[in-house]
Structure formats: structure tokens, C-alpha cells
């Protein structure tokens, strides 16, 4: 028996979400008293693969082939399901990212394994197997019991802390047969939204709403994010992307991204229920709003009733002072 974790890479690099799921999967392996095996697909350097041993992986399977450069869910599903069979895995862990969401359900069908997506904590029990997930767009949580022999979980980003747990992992090539007709999806072009950290990866989000009045005023948010460093970026409410003041990738809420940063600044955002659905897992929420009755203050930990155009310049000044001290 083992636990298998699919360690997704981005242009050959692992990132925080990968180490979070390895740490999480390692803890489940401990609960079950078995080994943790990592599976990587695509081109990743040996050095990068080796880094997985720091978080508990005792073996790394490396499925590296030029054919895997485009992420095709059918192809990746076949590789992962074959690896599950080869390692006799009883739990399979994915990150709840775009890629994880595109593959985990297919693997679940292939292996007739129950899938719980959007997990936010370790299983509360392994016999029966019960794990907690977000539901109703973050307005509730559900404890889900999985009855199949193999269990598949996707873990939400920023919901499990990275824990070091040094092992010595051998890297083994993993190969398998893929039917030709699985390669029907052709990648034409990839465009990166920007070089900034994504709203899902960020630890601090500086988010603005209609209260900022015009697209040029979002420059203040960019400035705050840059003072706060590389783990901070900007976000916004839905009307702001509808107005094309900011890119769609920054839209947070029920119909946009659901985020869980350590710190969320809601600036000129009223706090509509659909907006709150996307942010209510944030650890700390700061609201800046002229309207003392804005619902955002009910969700916030710290609040300033005031005009963003007066508060933000002082915020920029004070944050700069802190960072320089």
C-alpha cells in the first residue's frame, strides 16, 4: 500500500502548491502507516525532482516524454492511473488547480475511486475515510465519506502548511503506453496573464472595487502590492473586470476565483454575498470603505471607514516605513 501524490509542475518548476500537497499527502501516509510516492509528468530537472524528498516523498516516479508537453487530461489520466496500479496506492492526492481539476475526476472514473475535491484539511478519520471540503461556494463545509478502496483527494491551495520531513528518495523513470487517439487536443499557443504571482498563489491580495472610481486609480493597489513583496498581488470585484479596468484573471468571487490568502485588502468593495463567497477563507480581511454600513465590515477583521483616496496614500507611506525599518 502507498499514497501517491501527483506533483504538478509549471514550466519545469514545482511551486508552493506542490509542496503543500506533498506535505499533506505525507501526513496521510503517516496516518495509514505507508510510504509516500510522488509522480511527476513532463520535463522537470533531477534536482527539482529530488527536492520532493524534503517533504516526505520516499520515491519519485518521473514520466518524462516530449509527448507530455501539452497537458491533455486523457493522457495524464492514463499515466496517473497506471502509476496508481503500479504502486498499489490507496490514496491519490492532487492540487485543486486547473490541471488537478481537469485530471482527478477522470482518474476517479478509471479506477472507480471516490473523489473529494476542494479538501481543506487532513482526513478526520481513515476508517471510515472522512475528509472535510468546501461547499456552497465557501458558505459551508461538508464532511464527505469515501467508500471505495481507492480514495482521490484534491487539496485547496493555501489550506495546508508546508512541513519539512527529510527522506532519501530515488528517482525512477516511469513509462506507460498511451493510445494514439488520446492526443487529439492540440495546443496552439499559451499566453501568460502576466509575470506576477497568480491570485490563487498569492499570500496577500490587494483588491479594489467600484469605490476606486476609475481604472487609473488601481495603480495605487499595484504600488501597495509591490511594497508588500513578491507574494502579494492585486485582485478586484466583478464589475471591475466587466468594465475592463483589470484583467479577468483578477476577478475574485463566486463566479471568479475563490481565494484563501493570509491577508485580503478589500478597498472600495461593498462586500456583496457573491464577492464574500470568494474570499471568506482569507485569514485576515481588511476593509476600507466610506460607507459604515457596507456588509464588508461584517466579514472584516480590521476596518477603516474612510475615503480610499485619503487612506491609500497614508497606507503606502506607512507600509514603506515598515518595510524600510
Amino acid at each position, binding site marked *: 500500500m502507498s499514497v501517491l501524490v501527483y506533483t504538478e509542475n509549471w514550466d519545469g518548476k514545482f511551486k508552493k502548491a506542490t509542496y503543500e500537497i506533498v506535505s499533506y499527502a505525507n501526513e496521510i501516509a503517516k496516518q495509514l502507516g505507508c510510504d509516500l510516492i510522488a509522480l511527476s509528468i513532463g520535463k522537470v530537472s533531477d534536482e527539482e525532482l529530488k527536492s520532493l524528498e524534503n517533504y516526505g516523498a520516499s520515491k519519485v516516479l518521473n514520466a518524462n516524454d516530449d509527448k507530455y508537453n501539452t497537458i*491533455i*487530461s*486523457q493522457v495524464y*489520466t492514463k499515466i496517473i492511473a497506471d502509476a496508481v496500479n503500479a504502486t498499489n496506492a490507496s490514496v491519490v492526492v492532487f492540487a485543486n*488547480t*486547473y*490541471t488537478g*481539476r481537469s*485530471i482527478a*475526476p*477522470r482518474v*476517479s*472514473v*478509471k479506477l472507480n*475511486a*471516490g*473523489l473529494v475535491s*476542494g479538501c481543506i484539511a487532513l482526513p478526520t478519520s481513515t476508517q471510515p475515510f472522512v475528509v472535510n471540503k*468546501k*461547499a*456552497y461556494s465557501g458558505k*459551508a*463545509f*461538508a*464532511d464527505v*465519506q469515501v*467508500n*471505495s478502496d481507492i480514495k482521490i483527494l484534491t487539496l485547496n491551495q493555501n489550506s495546508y502548511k508546508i512541513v519539512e520531513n527529510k527522506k532519501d528518495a530515488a528517482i525512477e523513470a516511469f513509462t506507460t503506453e498511451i493510445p494514439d487517439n488520446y492526443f*487529439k*487536443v*492540440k495546443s*496552439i*499557443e499559451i*499566453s*501568460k496573464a502576466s509575470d506576477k504571482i*497568480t491570485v*490563487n498563489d498569492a499570500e496577500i491580495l490587494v483588491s479594489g472595487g467600484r469605490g476606486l472610481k476609475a481604472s487609473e486609480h488601481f495603480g495605487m493597489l499595484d504600488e501597495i502590492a509591490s511594497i508588500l513583496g513578491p507574494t502579494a498581488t492585486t485582485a478586484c470585484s466583478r464589475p471591475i473586470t466587466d468594465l475592463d479596468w483589470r484583467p479577468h484573471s483578477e476577478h475574485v468571487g*463566486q*463566479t*471568479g476565483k475563490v481565494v484563501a490568502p*493570509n*491577508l485580503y485588502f478589500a478597498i472600495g468593495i461593498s462586500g456583496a*454575498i*457573491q464577492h464574500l463567497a470568494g474570499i471568506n477563507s482569507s*485569514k*485576515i480581511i481588511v476593509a476600507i470603505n466610506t460607507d459604515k454600513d457596507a456588509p464588508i*465590515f*461584517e*466579514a*472584516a477583521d*480590521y*476596518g*477603516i471607514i*474612510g*475615503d480610499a483616496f485619503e487612506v491609500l496614500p*497614508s*497606507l503606502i507611506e*506607512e*507600509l514603506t516605513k*515598515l518595510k524600510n525599518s
Partner: protein
Amino acid sequence: MKILVCISNVPDTTAKISFVEDNKVYNKNNVQFIISPYEELALTRALELKEAASGTITVLTVGLQDAEPTMRKALAMGADDAIRVNTEAKDAMFVAKQIAEVAKNKNYDIIFTGKESIDYNGSQVGEMVAELLDIPSITSVSGIDVEGTTGKIQREIDGGYEQIECEFPFVGSGQKGIAPEPRIPAMRGIMMARKKPLNIVEPVEFTDLTQVITHTLPEAKSACTMIEPDNVGELVRLLHEEAKAI
């Protein structure tokens, strides 16, 4: 072009969330149900694709009779016919089995779902249907055009977008961007919807592999600490020293 759009019937986005039966079951009392927003966008785009070429749009829901008003709304938006698989939607694989059973001999060119239902938030059903039918699935479709029998698709990926092409048939899960706004049914559409076929089929048997054993609600937040607007330094101090967030 034959398109199937899978529709989940979910509580309105502003609905209060509460549970009954030992917190197992969502409390539907006084709640308005709607087409889950992502498949509403996917349906809107499917209608545009059909109008640009030709074809039929079928909508499908796995659910009990109380889902029918939502299905009529989809018909009023312009779908040609509807199928309801007459059973309570259990877990995602159960729902996917029902959808795949309906779709398996019907040669749909595209099967659309939403990227997730806003109640269970599984992001599972579409990809599962594709695996059951052994066809490609494209997740998080933020734009789609059709040329002949090829979908020219933009999908969102982590940190950006990817332009891809895929021959029919495939499953696409729609998200924000696939259509700018959901289509609002016109009066004529609402009248016509009453006469459009809504076929009921019985479910196939499948034992669900997962079960929700209980729901919980988030803990109430403690009161917000208010800071005077001319004392932003205090906010920064609290974030640094008390919350340790910066």
C-alpha cells in the same frame, strides 16, 4: 451540430445556506433555484454557435421534478428540448454515469457542463462524463468557436490562457468568458418553452462512492476592529504585530 448542455439546479447565489436532517441535507425552504451560473454561460454560447451554423441544443438535468422550472428556463433561453433523468443527484460519479448513459448513443458533437456547480463545487461531472465516453475533455473553457468539426478553444490554465484545437466530439466545461453575459429569455421564448419537449428518463443503477455525512457553517467572525482613517499607522502596526500578516 448536436450539443448537449448539462444543467445543475442550484440555490440562487444570494440564498441563505442552512441544513436539515442532521445537517445532511440542504434546506430548500424559501430558496429560489437557478441554472448554475457557469452552465448558463455555456448554454448561452452553445445557442450562439447553433445560430451561426445550425443544429440542436438539448439540455439535461439529473434531478427530481422540482428541477423542471429551471429546465423550462433553459428552454426559454432557446434550447430545443430537455431531458430529465428522474433521480436525486447523489455524488458526481453517479450523476456522470446518468449523463453518459443518455449521451452514449446520441453522437453529440459537444457536451457542455459548467466548470463547477455552485452548490457541491466539485468540478467533477464534466470530466467524468468524458472519461466514461472515452473522449477528450477541455476544462475551464473561456472562449470557443467552431470551424467545421473542430473546436477552437481558449481555456484558462494556472497563470494564463491556452489556445487549443480539438476535433468533435469533446466535453467542454464552461467558465467566465465563454459568453459575456447569460442570455435573458424573451417573452416569446418563455411562451414557446411551454410547448417544447421535456422528456423524462429513468436512471441506471449505480452505488455512489462518496456520501456527505454532515455539513457545517463557517464560524461567525469576531467583531471588526475599527481604526480611524487618520491613523493608518495603527492599522499597519496591528497587521504587523497582532495579525502577523505583513
